[in-house]
C-alpha cells in the first residue's frame, strides 16, 4: 500500500508516507530490543540522533557521499549503543530504563552545548539531499527520496525477517521469556542483550540518517526522549514481538494524525484513549491480538492487521511539518 503512493499522491501524502517509512525502520529496531529481547531501552531516540548528526556532519563537513555517510553513521550508532550498553546491560528492568533515559538526556545536552560541532540549538541546515540518479527515480526531489526510503525500508524489513526467524531471534525470545533459564541452557545472556541493543541502534541510526537527509534540517529537540517513548507506543499499539506489529504501530502513530487533521484539538485525548484502551483490552497489541484471534478461529490470516484504527500522535520527527 505504501509502495504505490507516489504514483497518485499529493505532496502532503508523500511527505507523510516518507515519515511513516522512517518510523517503521525506527520501530522495527526498537521491537528487536523491547519486543523480542524484553529489554526496555529509552535511548532509541538518541541512537537515531547519533545517526542523523553523524551523517549530516560527514556529508556537510567532510563532503562524503550519502552511501558512505549512511554506512559510517550506522557504525557510529552501534558503537555508541555499546558504550551505553556494556557498563549497564547487567542491570535489568527499572535500572536499565533509568540508565538509557539518562543517556538520552545527556545526549540532548551534548547536542545543545557542543556548539562548534553541532551548532547548538540552531541545529544543522543545508544537509545535502542524497544524489539519487534521475534516470532511476525521476527528477522530483520528494518523489525520488520516497523511492530511496521505501527501498531502504524493504531492505530493513528483510533483515529483520531474517533476524527474527534465525536462532539468534528465537534466542532473544528465550531471553525475554526467562533469562535465568536462558543462561542455564548455555546462552550468553550479556552478549545476547548487547547484540539486541546494537541491532536496535543500527536500525535507529538508519532511520536518523533518512530523517536528516529528508528534512535537510535537524535540531537537538528532534531526538529528545519523547522520541524513544514514541517507539514504545508504536510497538505496544502494533504488537510487541511480532513482525507486522511495529509496522502497524508506526503507521498509526505517524500517519493517522495527518488523516485526523480536521479533529486537531481532539488528537491528544484520542491518542491517550487509544493507548489506554489497547493496554487494557488487547495487551498483545493490534497484530498480536489478531494473531491470537486467528490462532483460535483459524479464519483470520495472522499479521494482516487492519491498520486504519483510530488515534493520534504527539509532535515528533515523524509528524513534523515540512
Amino acid at each position, binding site marked *: 500500500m505504501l509502495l504505490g503512493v507516489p504514483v497518485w499522491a499529493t505532496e502532503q501524502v508523500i511527505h507523510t508516507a516518507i515519515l511513516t517509512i522512517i518510523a517503521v525502520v525506527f520501530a522495527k529496531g526498537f521491537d528487536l530490543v523491547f519486543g523480542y529481547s524484553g529489554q526496555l531501552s529509552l535511548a532509541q531516540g538518541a541512537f537515531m540522533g547519533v545517526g542523523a548528526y553523524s551523517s549530516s556532519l560527514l556529508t556537510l563537513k567532510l563532503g562524503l557521499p550519502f552511501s558512505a555517510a549512511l554506512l559510517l553513521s550506522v557504525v557510529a550508532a552501534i558503537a555508541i549503543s555499546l558504550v551505553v550498553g556494556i557498563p549497564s546491560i547487567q542491570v535489568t528492568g527499572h535500572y536499565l530504563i533509568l540508565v538509557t533515559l539518562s543517556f538520552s538526556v545527556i545526549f540532548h545536552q551534548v547536542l545543545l552545548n557542543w556548539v562548534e560541532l553541532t551548532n547548538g540549538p540552531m541545529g544543522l541546515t543545508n544537509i545535502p539531499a542524497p544524489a539519487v540518479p534521475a534516470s532511476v527515480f525521476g527528477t522530483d526531489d520528494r518523489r525520488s527520496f520516497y523511492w530511496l526510503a521505501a527501498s531502504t525500508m524493504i531492505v530493513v524489513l528483510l533483515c529483520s525477517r*531474517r533476524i527474527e*526467524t534465525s536462532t*539468534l531471534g528465537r*534466542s532473544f525470545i*528465550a531471553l525475554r521469556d526467562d533469562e535465568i*533459564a536462558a543462561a*542455564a541452557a*548455555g*546462552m*550468553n545472556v550479556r552478549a545476547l542483550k548487547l547484540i539486541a541493543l546494537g541491532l536496535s541502534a543500527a536500525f535507529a541510526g538508519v532511520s536518523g540518517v533518512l530523517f536528516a537527509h529528508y528534512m535537510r534540517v535537524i535540531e537537538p529537540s528532534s531526538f529528545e526522549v519523547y522520541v524513544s517513548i514514541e517507539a514504545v507506543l508504536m510497538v505496544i499499539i502494533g504488537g510487541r514481538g511480532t513482525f507486522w506489529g511495529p509496522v502497524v504501530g508506526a503507521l498509526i502513530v505517524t500517519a493517522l494524525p495527518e488523516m485526523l487533521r480536521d479533529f486537531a484539538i481532539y488528537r491528544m485525548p484520542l491518542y491517550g484513549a487509544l493507548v489506554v484502551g489497547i493496554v487494557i483490552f488487547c495487551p498483545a497489541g493490534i497484530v498480536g491480538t489478531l494473531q491470537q484471534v486467528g490462532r483460535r478461529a483459524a479464519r483470520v490470516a495472522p499479521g494482516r492487521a487492519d491498520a486504519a484504527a483510530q488515534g493520534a500522535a504527539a509532535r515528533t520527527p515523524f509528524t513534523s511539518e515540512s
Partner: protein
Amino acid sequence: MLVCQDVTKTFGGLRALDRVSLDVEAGEIVGLVGPNGAGKSTLLGVISGNYAPHSGRVLFDGQDITGLPPHQVVRRGLARTFQRSRVWPSLSVRENVALASRASRDPLSRRNILGVNRGPIGTDARTGAILQRVGLSDLAPLPARVLSYGQKRLLEIGRALAGEPELIVLDEPTAGMNDRERAGFGEVVRPLAAEGVAILLVEHALDVIHECCARVFVLDFGKIIFSGSPSAMVTNERVVSAYLG
C-alpha cells in the same frame, strides 16, 4: 565427576551453606534431601554458577569451575533444571530443546547466529530423539505454555539433555507431577544413569529417592548431616530429628 569441597556461602549474616562437601560419580544417581530452607537450592546455585561461594571449591571432571557463569558451566557438560518450571512459554516445545542444544554445544557457529532455518527450528533428528525420550514428541509444535505442569518438568529435563551433559542436577523434578507422570519420570531418569550420565537429584518425595538413588546426602541448616544409603537414612537419628523437629 562432580566434587564440592568445603563450600560455604553466606547471605548477610546467614550461613546458608557451611563447609558442604559432596561428590557424584559417573552413572550414579545421588539424592540430596533436607527440610525447606536447608540450603539445597543455594547449593545447586553454587554448583551451576548462579552464586559464587564464599569459600570452597566446585570441581567438575577434575577442573575447578567455581565462580564460572552459568552458561559456561552448562557448556562444560553440567546441566540443571529448576525448582519451579522455567520453560520458555512463547517458544514451541521443540524450539525449547533445539535452542538449548545449539546454545550449549556450538554457540558461535555461523549457522547458529544468522543461519537460515529451513522449516521450523527443532525439526532435526537430535531434537526429535530427545523429545521422544521425555515423551513429548506429539506436542513438539505446540507453544510450551500449553503444557501441563508435569509436562513442563519433562520438557525442562529434555532441555537439559539437549547439550549432551555428563551430569544433570534436577531440582525437585517430581513436585507437581501426578502419579502417572511420576512413574514416567523414573523411566526417563534411570536409563540416563545406565548410559553413564551422572544425576544429582534434589527431592522431597522419599519414594522417588528410594527408587532411584543408591546414595543420599542430607542437608540441614547448611550442613551435611548424613550421607549413605536411603535405607540407612530413614533410621538415622539426626535425619529423623531434622525432619520431625
